[in-house]
């Protein structure tokens, strides 16, 4: 790793960890603090209410964070090009950053779930695992009694899921950073509206047309991507296939981000 890449990665990681800390503090203040304050004013604060307010989904909060943060491409690009850092190094540093930040995010999310949320619910580790997002979908794949294996796979799976989300954000951010503020606003507003219109048109067209459309193949393919094999011996869903799907999506997103990152330039130069 070159000195420049190391310095850039260190700078980005330090900055983004501080943002993550701020996000968690805000979430704690809003999701935990507000109900507690309200309960204090209404004189109905109980120990159970306090414990219930602590049961927040840290993994979901982190998934929003890891998608949104890499979208903010231009501000760091400005600072780094001012300091003699190439676009290639910026892209590499962001990749390393997403990988490391996702690791940290998953460690925090898993620790919070098992040591806070699960403990409040008075559940054992293995019982709590079944309530996890991964546990609910793929829990039985490595055997019902193989908690260590399942937990390890859970960790890897969620880590990769966060990386994929981060790379999706990075790809979108890289495209957006090439647009002017006005065009960006138009795209943000127009794309969902046009998408809804298109969906409505599609539904209408399918309803009115006499052609019989069979979506079974598409459904099967989408099912396969998330790991549906139909083999009930090992459980309905195979996490290894879903992991492969996420890997492929991650590579595509990293490629898109690389391509557009290469075109970054200073606006109003």
């Amino acid at each position, binding site marked *: 790793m*070159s*000195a*420049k*890449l190391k*310095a*850039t990665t*260190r*700078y980005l990681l330090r900055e983004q960890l501080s943002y993550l800390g701020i996000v968690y503090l805000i979430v704690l203040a809003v999701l935990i603090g507000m109900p507690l304050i309200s309960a204090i004013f209404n004189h109905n604060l109980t120990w159970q209410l306090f414990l219930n307010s602590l049961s927040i989904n840290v993994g979901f909060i982190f998934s929003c964070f890891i998608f949104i943060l890499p979208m903010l491409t231009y*501000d760091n690009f*400005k*600072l*780094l*090009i*001012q*300091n*003699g*850092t*190439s*676009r*290639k*190094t910026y892209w590499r540093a962001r990749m390393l950053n997403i990988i490391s930040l996702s690791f940290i995010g998953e460690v925090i999310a898993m620790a919070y779930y098992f040591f806070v949320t699960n403990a409040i619910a008075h559940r054992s580790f293995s019982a709590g695992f079944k309530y996890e997002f991964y546990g609910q979908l793929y829990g039985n794949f490595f055997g019902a009694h193989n908690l260590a294996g399942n937990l390890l796979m859970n960790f890897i799976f969620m880590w990769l899921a966060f990386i994929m989300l981060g790379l999706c954000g990075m790809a979108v951010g890289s495209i957006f950073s090439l647009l002017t503020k006005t065009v960006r606003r138009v795209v943000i507003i127009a794309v969902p509206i046009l998408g809804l219109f298109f969906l409505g048109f599609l539904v209408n067209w399918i309803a009115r047309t006499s052609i019989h459309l069979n979506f079974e193949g598409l459904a099967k393919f989408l099912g396969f991507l998330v790991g549906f094999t139909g083999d009930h011996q090992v459980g309905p869903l195979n996490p290894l296939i879903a992991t492969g799907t996420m890997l492929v999506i991650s590579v595509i997103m990293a490629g898109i981000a690389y391509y557009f990152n*290469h075109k970054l*330039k*200073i606006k*109003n*130069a």
Partner: protein
Amino acid sequence: MSIQIHAVSQSFHGRSILKDINLTIEPNKIYGLLGRNGAGKSTLLNIISNRIFPSQGTVTLDEESMNDNDRTLGRIYLMSEVNLYSERAKLNKLFDTTELMYGSFNRQYANDLADKFGLDLTSRFGKLSTGYRSIFKLIVALCVPADYIFLDEPVLGLDANHRELFYQELIETYSETPRTFVISTHLIEEIANLIEHVFVLDDHKIVINGSVPDILERAYTISGPDADVKQYTAGLNIIGEDHLGGITAHYVYGALADDRPIPDTVKLEHLDLQKLFINLTTEKKAAAHVS
């Protein structure tokens, strides 16, 4: 050992900004990059520092491409008119970032300069006035360990005292640690004694590229009675003229006719850089004759 700008052209939406620019920027020299508003000075500096891409042409440093290359980009620093620092960032932190990215930074000198200019390093960049933003960027430019420093409008918003202080510090730091400075400014008189070499951009092309003494050696004011002046300057490269009553002044750039005697009524003086610049960039037809 130099920055080579080869056949660089740039156009935005079909409008030409730079046409076939070829330049060499050598180590340890102070250059002036002069041009009227919209001549393409900032565009050229942004292309050199790889902040924007040229439509055509290449920029290399010691024969290595400047495009997307940490090795070459890490050897240059562009202090631009556009602010690329975060508005929220504290000045001290921005020094830290510069040090981290460039590998070193003369922190002691930066603190001394901040003291001299009266800049509070605990302030946020966004809270600074235009003048103090320029001062902060100048401090970074003088303390960063780059071989080539480009200063685009370095004294924007600075009062006369601060401008004077900056020029003094520039000379001092240059004599202690020689490196290349390229200064792009409209205040030609203030840098005229500072620069060794000048590039003049006009009509999107380089019209002057040479050492300041050589160029001024070839620039003349020829004044006197209208008829005598006209007779003497006939056939010379007249780049401008002034009239006051019956007295005429012709500004000539280039060699004089050696075999032509100077009439007693005609006065011959050398032009200063600012006057030369004004005449070169006002009279388009004349400027086209400059080589």
